[in-house]
């Protein structure tokens, strides 16, 4: 317990500063959550996106319970069936239930995308905050590197990294890890640039000066005080980026550069379905719809968050 003795005109008074008790913490967290939900409810897009995302996450987490079929084991008695009560999305060329494959593929895809974005943030934010806070040569050098990495058009940087992974014969988990690394690495310059921009507009504010005057360490000010105030553009960008990451992973595996079959994957399932879609379009439709749904959910949520977090836009 710490005490502070303040000398005001009214005489000495002692203020106790206690660490909050557990119940107080819970109460605080609850207030924050309720406030956040109220804000969320104000934006129709964010709310719709949030509902879509929550249901997606629940379905994906419950995939082992929901899906009755093995997504990998072939069943030659029932190949290329149309949607029915047994197989609600039909079956693919090996008789595997498409619905289970979509669910299990989604689990993998969404977790890769989320880990990739988190990795990119962890890599980019410190660079952005430090270069924005210190400025000078560090800043110029960091930003030139960022510009250089951003010059890689579209999918090419991923193609380079995925090719490298293939040549080193990385498979299964390691291949997924490379995807996480590639997508995160490609996101990091964007994250660094956003963090830097926010720090630049934040670092001349009074609270920073006050902290400097009371002798706080530079790193403490940069990360603990300025940092949290720079998060809103990053949160919006990360949400939108999650959708983009899913598109990229699906595109790479569509090109045959992702995880090799029989692992369920929306992209490679689509690419395999191309040979059968003339007679059986369902094989090509459902994995694509799954990608659309997921990406749309992230985009809606990101759009809505932007409206909520950027007051300038709301006024329109």
């Amino acid at each position: 317990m710490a005490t502070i003795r303040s000398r005001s005109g009214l005489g000495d008074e002692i203020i106790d500063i206690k660490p909050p008790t557990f119940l107080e913490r819970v109460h605080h967290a609850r207030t924050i959550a309720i406030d956040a939900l109220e804000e969320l409810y104000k934006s129709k897009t964010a709310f719709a996106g949030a509902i879509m995302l929550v249901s997606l996450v629940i379905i994906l987490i419950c995939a082992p319970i929901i899906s009755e079929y093995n997504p990998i084991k072939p069943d030659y008695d029932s190949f290329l069936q149309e949607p029915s009560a047994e197989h609600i999305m039909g079956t693919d060329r090996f008789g595997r239930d498409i619905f289970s494959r979509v669910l299990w593929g989604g689990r993998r895809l969404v977790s890769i995308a989320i880990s990739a974005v988190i990795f990119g943030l962890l890599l980019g934010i410190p660079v952005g905050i430090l270069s924005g806070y210190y400025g000078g040569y560090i800043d110029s050098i960091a930003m030139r590197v960022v510009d250089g990495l951003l010059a890689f058009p579209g999918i090419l940087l991923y193609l380079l990294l995925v090719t490298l992974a293939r040549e080193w014969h990385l498979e299964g988990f390691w291949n997924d890890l490379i995807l996480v690394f590639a997508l995160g690495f490609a996101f990091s310059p964007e994250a660094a640039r956003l963090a830097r921009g926010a720090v630049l507009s934040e670092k001349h504010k009074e609270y920073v000066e006050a902290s400097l005057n009371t002798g706080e360490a530079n790193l403490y000010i940069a990360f603990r005080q300025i940092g949290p105030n720079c998060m809103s553009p990053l949160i919006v960008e990360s949400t939108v980026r999650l959708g983009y990451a899913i598109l990229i992973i699906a595109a790479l595996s569509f090109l045959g550069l992702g995880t090799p079959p029989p692992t369920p994957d929306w992209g490679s399932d689509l690419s395999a379905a191309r040979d059968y879609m003339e007679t059986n379009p369902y094989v090509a439709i459902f994995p694509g719809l799954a990608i659309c749904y997921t990406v749309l959910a992230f985009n809606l949520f990101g759009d809505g968050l932007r409206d909520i977090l950027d007051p300038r836009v709301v006024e329109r």
Partner: protein
Amino acid sequence: MLIYTINRILHMIPVLFVLTVVVFMFIQLLPGDVIDTLIGDEEAEDPATRELLMKEYGLDKPIYVQYGVWIGKVLQGDFGKSLVTRRPVALELFESIPATVYLAVVGISISMLIAIPLGAIAAVKRNSPTDYTAQIVSLIGISIPEFWFAIMCVLFFSLYLGWLPSSGYMSPFEDLGQSLKYLILPAAAVGFRQAAYTTRLTRSSMLDEMNKEYVDTARSLGFSEKKVIYKYTLRNAMIPTITISGLQLANLLGGTVVLETIFAWPGIGQAIYLAIIDRDYPLIQAGILVLGVIVVIVNLLVDLLYRVLNPRVALN
């Protein structure tokens, strides 16, 4: 303007440096001996030839010397020989550039023709059913994976209706009508996604412009609403749209890898994809470098164009 141009060109140097370093490191990071990767197995077997080649590429020297030697060759247009066709890589690449430019330019033009009027109308009739429809369609547009959209187009227009060829390419100089037939589906797939982006962009920049004071002034002077919007507001709102479309054009040149693969379009994206499949490293390396440089140059031109279109920027 001249000083700005020179300044901007100087800024390109570090960007190009990062780009070349990453592309150079790609070959170094591949498993196995660099000489085998670059020359192919058969030619590198003889120890004497090997020695000679090592000298030529500077492989017996430290890595920064190797980088220097490589850059020197690249500046002279020598990217090495393709491991598959044994022809100079530069030749292979430059043969495939026209097809990509053709597709990208037509795609971007289609998207701008759709998106600018749509975005403008959505902004003018804000919060009307038209606006909501435009917003929802464009949001869906950026969420649909382009390869899935392409497959669905093929499924419907080529396989089901049989109106258009499902893939292939013909030069417009050979037979314009036939060439356009091949072009429609890929260009629509490119254009749809771009149109979605551009609509959102035009709408938001239009809304920004409509809140400015000169619009009120124009109205108070008694100009008709049509004149205010189409003569003054839209013109200013087009500036960011054109800029971003330019940047997207650059991105498209690299990002059409997936679409070119689906439609067997013999552009630079497909060349890189086939090179990855065939493990043709010199071609991968050169292709990505060339595309990166194109992006950097297009970005520069767009920046300069922005200054020409919007002279007010120079005053700040």
